[in-house]
């Protein structure tokens, strides 16, 4: 009983205004259901490979959307080019008929602004629901010369002895942008070792082939629990509830701009009929109010951004984040 109250409280906290809508989510959803839709399975397109953070997010979501809406959901991985292929598919090829939903992350914006070469824009995909947020964390070794050092100490070494500290990064993405900020603000210079994803960098850290890795909580939790690697700084505005002893990067370096977070949300191709779009979004929001799904997401080490959990403000706030990212690209000369 106690835990049920706690869960109810938790879900209420996490999605306050949405949860305030009274009544049975199933009945409310049924009211929104358009006529003759859906008549077949709905595809949740994931642009990253099966098994990764994005994929697990989508598959868990699909399970609970099926539970609340009764619709059949198929998760499909359209992969290639680090998400580029799937993003382009969603923006330019997928039919806007409501049968395609993209389960995407804010990495979509970088692809649209820097790599799409005008072939499509992020506004070609319309957000219908917010899922969760997952901040980048700097992770350090638990043996060797950098053992036990804080972010500040390591940055100082990279300043005193440039090109000696090896940092794992993923080129052309937030892994690199945070390094740009740190280097620009501190005068440090790192050896940037490119990897295909955060997980591969964590591997290299555990193997002593790099000195700092940047990854998500779910990627390093097992190694951190065993004391093989240590989280040093979280690139989020506030400390994470499950990493209370780890400072934010802003605290560690005395700044306010070290915020690099994967924001996961669902989109539909532009032109999807309004009633279907509303229904698809409502179905996801219903699932997101299910304490079981919330608990599953929390277990994976994500948090919920209060600016986005309110469906009414979600779209505008996402757009603000996207435009802030555009400004960063313009400031750093990546975008003319």
């Amino acid at each position, binding site marked *: 009983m106690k835990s049920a109250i706690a869960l109810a409280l938790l879900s209420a906290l996490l999605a306050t205004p949405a949860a305030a809508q009274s009544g049975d989510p199933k009945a409310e959803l049924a009211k929104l259901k358009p006529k003759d839709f859906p008549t077949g399975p709905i595809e949740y397109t994931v642009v990253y490979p099966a098994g*990764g953070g994005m994929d697990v997010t989508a598959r868990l979501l699909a399970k609970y959307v099926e539970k609340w809406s009764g619709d059949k959901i198929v998760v499909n991985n359209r*992969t*290639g080019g680090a998400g580029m292929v799937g993003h382009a598919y969603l923006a330019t090829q997928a039919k806007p008929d409501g049968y395609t939903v993209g389960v995407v992350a804010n990495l979509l914006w970088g692809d649209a602004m820097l790599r799409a070469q005008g072939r499509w824009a992020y506004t070609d995909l319309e957000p219908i629901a917010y899922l969760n947020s997952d901040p980048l964390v700097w992770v350090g070794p638990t043996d060797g010369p950098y053992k036990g050092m804080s972010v500040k100490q390591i940055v100082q070494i990279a300043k005193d002895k440039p090109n000696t500290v090896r940092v794992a990064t993923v*080129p052309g993405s937030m892994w690199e942008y945070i390094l740009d900020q740190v280097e620009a603000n501190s005068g440090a210079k790192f050896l940037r070792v*490119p990897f295909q994803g955060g997980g*591969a960098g964590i591997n290299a850290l555990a*193997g002593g082939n790099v000195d700092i890795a940047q990854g998500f909580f779910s990627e390093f939790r097992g190694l951190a629990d*065993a004391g093989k690697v240590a989280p040093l700084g979280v690139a989020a505005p506030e400390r994470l509830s499950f990493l209370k002893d780890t400072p934010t990067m802003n605290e560690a370096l005395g700044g306010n701009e070290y915020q690099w977070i994967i924001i996961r949300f669902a989109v539909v191709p532009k032109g999807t009929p309004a009633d279907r779009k509303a229904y698809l979004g409502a179905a996801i929001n219903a699932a997101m109010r299910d304490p079981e799904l919330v608990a599953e997401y929390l277990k994976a080490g994500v948090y919920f951004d209060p600016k986005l959990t309110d469906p009414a403000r979600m779209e505008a706030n996402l757009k603000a984040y996207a435009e802030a990212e555009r400004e960063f690209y313009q400031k750093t000369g990546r975008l003319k």
Partner: protein
Amino acid sequence: MDAVGGLLTGFGVILTPENLYLCFLGSLIGTLVGVLPGVGPLAALALLLPITFTLTPVGGMVMLASIFYGAMYGGSTTSILLNIPGEAASVVTCFDGHQMAKQGRAGAALGIAAIGSFVAGTLGVIVMTFFAPAIAAVAIRFGPPENFALMVLGVICTLYMIGGSLVKGVLMVALGFLTAAIGIDVVNGRERFTFGSIDLSAGIELLAVVIGLFGVTEVLSNVERIVKSTVVTDRIRGLWPTLADWRASWRPMLRGSGLGFFLGLVPGGGPVTASFMSYALEKRISAHPERFGKGAIEGVAGPESANNAAVAGSIIPVLSLGIPGNPVTALLLGALVIQGIQPGPLFIAQRPDLFWGIVASMYVGNVFLLLLNLPLVGLWAQLLRIPYRVLFPIVLLLSVVGTYSANKNVFDLWVMLGFGLLGYVLHKLEYDLAPFVIALVLAPLLEQSLRQSLAMSPDGAMIFLQRPGTALMLTACAVLVALMFRRAKKS
């Protein structure tokens, strides 16, 4: 807990009707997934992942793992019979396996593939039982410089083993490298050779290339000889490997097992690389390298063992460190995470039932797969009696379906067709396709590890001499190159 005690615990967990059934079901699905071109273990696991939500963690993992290694058993079937690789780790099996089938020895090839898979799979689990945590701790130190040296060794072995014209061989390797360069640069994320095309920015899909080069080319070169009525030119000889086959195969099986296990273990490796490297190794050390590509049973025994051993090898880092080395094991990790279990260095101590249950299931699964696959050998071999005019539309259909189902991208079909035509032309001009494909597979890893090594080194290329393992492998490369020049001078 010691290994024997642990294993007993594991068998206690696994020997329940439900878990045995799931292990058998996984083996069966895995075999089918392997047999069907295009549907690889990754796609199958992704598809079946939701089913495991309703199973116990042990049951779910047992089923997913058995699909993974089961696919390695089935993958050789279409490679040998139809020259279409069932999945990427069985591409090399086309080289000699299909030639054997043409000589009426499909049974022997299929039999050796199944037995090699069994031997390697079982050896892999035995090593896993006794040394998993220790091995994982060492393997994780294998970094970009070591990976680079290993890939260079692979490419040099490929060049060294080229029969016939060295110039043609070098050309094919270069073409393989060029083709691999198409798409997004793995290091700085820029597009290369894409001409602004979104399709090309994803790179050339390996499966589309090999299905085109082998499956489609095969059909094109066969239909021009209409007189022929079946694939088999000779009579189908004995269904089972002969004594001579055994004598030729046991060493490649053991070498393939060792090499495959190792390549499964290290970050970035996996069954695909393992099978290619094993083929290169076998051809390199063979007393008669000229037999390769013409139906050498070693060319089937080695790689088919290697890809299975690589599965066992690649599961170790996931379970004992919580770090996946390739996409399929990343999915296995995902499956555990969804169940609320986070593997890491403490996993074996915290969840002995799960770790040892999975290990025990791999012993059982390999026995299931051997029993499942050996009786099928006879049946499969009969397929080749089908008149070619009936068979070739089926081959084309399988090629199209297989290519499309991998990414559900129509562009891949054009790639397949293009490489089918290219393969036909190259075949006519007597170019060997093996070096092209090997270069295509190894190039991305080679490039990435080279650039990573240089990025992580304050002293530039000196990093390759500073690390003992790397220096050793590169010295071996230098010796091979010297030998190659001497041989070229002589002839």
